[in-house]
């Protein structure tokens, strides 16, 4: 009777502990997601408070039942709180523990987080390698989009230091990667926007214009990017005016005028948000 009671008590305790552990990880994820929501709505104070709670819960989970997922959530919270060194250690710990089947999304999130912390610590080369790997292998769209944007921006920021030959090769490589992403997900406006930026560097303004049109039509993740995309359209418009033959220019200008009308621009060169 005593032994049966003891066994039941142990089982109950084990159940309670596992529920409690699960609750820590679940709460950590919940607080992290809340923090992301607050950050998107520019409620910085509340976002920071939520990420701190997420970190606290993830810390407890890591102590009680260390797992790759727990260290990933801990690292993501630390990344958002700007604790890059700690974040780097957490992501590395997550990889040392290993991700189980069905946790590919967590592994990709940890990789993106690790790359981001490397970048913040000035380690751009390993960050670029991780972004490239994510772009090659990941099926987790948020990680893919983050990697595409970060890698493109990192490379474009360094492009002015390269000699013309290397610059052309680097830009062609960037476009090849973006073309592959577009083959997989043509409806992603962000990839078209990034393509338009790279085409602008290459001087292929016709293609840059076309990609920027598609980006605007398919939708962009923020007003900042949307306005910048409109500025890219106007930039291409002016540059093409000088570059195209008169007949080509007439056809282009007519097409652009109909787009501008569709978008509600004030004229061919002034998006609706200009001169508020």
């Amino acid at each position, binding site marked *: 009777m005593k032994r049966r009671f003891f066994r039941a008590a142990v089982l109950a305790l084990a159940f309670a502990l596992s529920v409690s552990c699960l609750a820590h990880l679940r709460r950590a994820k919940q607080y992290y997601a809340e923090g992301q929501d607050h950050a998107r709505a520019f409620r*910085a104070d*509340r976002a920071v408070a939520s990420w701190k709670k997420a970190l606290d819960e993830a810390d407890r989970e890591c102590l009680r039942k260390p797992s790759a997922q727990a260290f990933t959530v801990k690292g993501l919270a630390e990344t958002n709180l700007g604790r890059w060194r700690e974040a780097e250690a957490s992501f590395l710990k997550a990889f040392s523990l290993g991700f189980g089947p069905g946790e590919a999304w967590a592994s990709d999130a940890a990789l993106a987080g690790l790359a981001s912390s490397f970048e913040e610590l000035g380690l751009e080369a390993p960050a670029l390698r991780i972004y490239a790997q994510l772009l090659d292998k990941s099926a987790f769209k948020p990680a893919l989009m983050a990697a595409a944007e970060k890698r493109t*921006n990192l490379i474009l*920021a360094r492009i*002015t230091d390269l000699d013309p030959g290397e610059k052309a090769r680097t830009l062609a490589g960037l476009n090849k990667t973006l073309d592959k992403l577009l083959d997989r997900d043509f409806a992603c406006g962000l990839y078209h926007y990034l393509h338009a930026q790279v085409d*602008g560097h290459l001087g292929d303004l016709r293609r840059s214009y076309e990609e920027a049109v598609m980006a605007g039509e398919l939708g962009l993740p923020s*007003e*900042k990017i949307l306005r910048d995309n409109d500025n890219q359209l106007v930039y291409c418009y002016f540059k093409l005016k000088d570059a195209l033959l008169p007949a080509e220019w007439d056809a282009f200008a007519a097409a652009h005028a109909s787009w501008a009308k569709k978008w509600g621009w004030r004229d061919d060169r002034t998006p609706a948000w200009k*001169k508020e």
Partner: protein
Amino acid sequence: MGKKDIEAALGRGVDILNEFLPLKSWLFFPILYSACVWAVRRVFDFRARILAWQVWLDPDIVRTKPDEFVLNFFCGDEALGREYADEIARRDIRVLRTAFPALYPIFGLEDAFLKALFRPEIESADYRAIVIEFASRTAKARDDIRPAAGDPEFWKALELIGMEAASLGLHLLKDAEVQNIIVALVKKPAGAAPAMPPDA
């Protein structure tokens, strides 16, 4: 319904800002002006719109532009083109690139809050002062607006003011008129306070 009613509504806006941001009157003009801009467009998610400038300080988008784009930005804006005429003529990309991160969010992306925050410099066409002041003034604005930005009541109150001003015909006034009304209200003796950050 006319200019007087709008003035009265915006005057109440100044009083409300005084409650939420005591001793931070240098922020009243940018906040109230950007609220008016969005109210005219009948977009009332003020929190996201007014605080969007904080996202626009993200350097990624500005440090990756090709030289030609930067040059075209300065040439395409009449006032900036005049101010930076020498650098443009010399194609001094180093100087233009240094100025670009401060001037592009204001004149390229046209953020209402940032435009109002640097109104004195824009009015006096002192664009180089914007470049010098940009980092410190935006950092100070971010710090000073934080206590109110976390309070949902602040945004509710601001939305009510915006909606009231919009319903009174705010869209019939010229942009410069709206700016002048707010500046006059902020400078009134009752709220006597600097229109510039104290240590800017």
